[in-house]
């Protein structure tokens, strides 16, 4: 007998010791843990993390049920009661559901948690819920999704751009091939032969031009973080006026600028210069004959945005027929004025590289108005 008692004593002590260890682990676990009645959802026990996360005192949390610490409706829009009863039932059948749950704390603030339910053999009347706040993770995920959507769009744009460039290269290269074959395999008069050779020359120059355009456009599609500097609208306008002096002397436009609301902007200066240059030279190029060309440039500052407005009284563009194509590459809208259809495409590309957007309003024989917006 004695021997037995001696042997038993340390075993009981050992078990007690173990229980204490588990209890300590339960209480200080980083995850919030609740033990609930499997039938009513009443909270029977909890750890410190649960108290902290739900912002309850121990005495108050003992009086609450699973429903009380949940928002009335879940992320799916289904009511908490409906969804909780399904989860309790599934756990009752020994499933171990892992789910996102909208939890509400004592102050009534809702937040998203990742939650797991478990049942333990021998303790079938209880459900163990462990959970942690994943609001921040969800926000990062949403941010990531937004970045991915942006990248997808950019990829699509680049794809379209690659198609367009390859199409514009195939044209002149097809001409070169066809003309060379004709010269090689047909009997031609000297005059005809020269025609085809000239055609080859012009097509080769065209290929070169498309490739140069391609280079310029790729350059403008890059977002050059390091080259950002303070740009003064009034300085840029003066520079552009100087480089357009020939056209200005010829067309004598009235250029009215108002940068009183805001005259400075930190950005890629060369891009902004190019935007001013293209829009102003377009206004001069597509002026209406017989009236004094007027160009009005105005900057505005709103809460989160910096706006630039360019307005002219020129020929205008019929947006009903050309709407989507106004900013398209190699698109032109006026038959009798020279141009290769790159100006507005470059304007849009560069504004987007600066993180802004551009929109157009226009009416034939009235004028055109561009609105450029940057986030301040």
């Amino acid at each position, binding site marked *: 007998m004695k021997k037995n008692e001696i042997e038993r004593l340390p075993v009981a002590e050992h078990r007690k010791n173990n229980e204490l260890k588990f209890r300590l682990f339960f209480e200080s676990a980083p995850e919030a843990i609740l033990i609930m009645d499997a039938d009513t959802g009443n909270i029977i026990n909890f750890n410190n993390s649960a108290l902290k996360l739900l912002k309850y005192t121990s005495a108050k949390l003992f009086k609450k049920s699973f429903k009380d610490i949940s928002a009335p409706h879940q992320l799916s829009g289904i009511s908490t009661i409906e969804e909780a009863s399904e989860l309790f039932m599934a756990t009752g059948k020994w499933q171990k559901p892992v789910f996102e749950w909208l939890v509400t704390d004592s102050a009534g603030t809702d937040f998203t948690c990742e939650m797991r339910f478990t049942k333990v053999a021998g303790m079938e009347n209880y459900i163990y819920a462990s959970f942690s706040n994943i609001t921040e993770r969800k926000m990062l995920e949403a941010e990531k999704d937004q970045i991915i959507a942006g990248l997808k769009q950019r990829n699509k744009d680049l794809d379209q751009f690659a198609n367009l460039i390859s199409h514009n290269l195939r*044209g002149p290269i097809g001409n070169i091939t*066809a003309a060379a074959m004709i010269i090689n395999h047909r009997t031609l008069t000297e005059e005809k032969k020269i025609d*085809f050779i000239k055609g080859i020359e012009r097509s080769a120059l065209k290929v070169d031009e498309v490739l140069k355009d391609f280079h310029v456009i790729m350059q403008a599609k890059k977002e050059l973080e390091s080259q950002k500097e303070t740009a003064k609208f009034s300085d840029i306008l003066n520079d552009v006026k100087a480089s357009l002096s020939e056209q200005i002397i010829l067309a004598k436009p009235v250029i009215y600028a108002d940068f009183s609301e805001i005259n400075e902007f930190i950005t890629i200066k060369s891009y902004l210069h190019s935007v001013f240059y293209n829009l102003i030279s377009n206004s001069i190029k597509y002026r209406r004959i017989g009236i004094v060309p007027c160009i009005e440039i105005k900057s505005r500052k709103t809460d989160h945005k910096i706006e630039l407005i360019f307005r002219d009284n020129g020929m205008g563009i019929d947006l009903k027929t050309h709407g989507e194509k106004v900013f398209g590459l190699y*698109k032109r809208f006026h038959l009798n004025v020279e141009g290769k259809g790159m100006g507005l495409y470059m304007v849009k590309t560069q504004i987007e590289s600066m993180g802004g957007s551009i929109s157009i309003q226009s009416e034939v024989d009235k004028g055109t108005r561009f609105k450029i917006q940057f986030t301040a």
Partner: protein
Amino acid sequence: MSNLVNFIIIDDDAINNIICTYTINELFPEADIQSFTEPEKGLEYIQKAFSEREYSEVDTILLLDLNMPTMTGWEVLQSYEKLSDQIKEQIKIFILSSSLDRRDKERAKITPHVIDILEKPLSMAKILPSLNS
């Protein structure tokens, strides 16, 4: 059959038009070939020349490019659709483009008056079967 077919070419690429003219003339040395680098002018010509003309035995083939700066080929076809039936009965349209994508092919199939969509360079073999004589 040499003088029983006429051609209209609408393509902003002038060199392509020279090559097409040569290719057509090899087979039809006497064909009347009108080429336009500006689609607006091409449409204008069609409207003027064909509204005065009575229906004749002479086929007219329109070779139409798709990718042009001021008006796409599809836009030309939209304007063409509005012309009188008397004009449209006299013209057979072939789209001629430097590269074809699947969507263009599908669209050509369902566009009225378009007989076929061809890739450059122009091959007369693809056009001959549609001629009357």
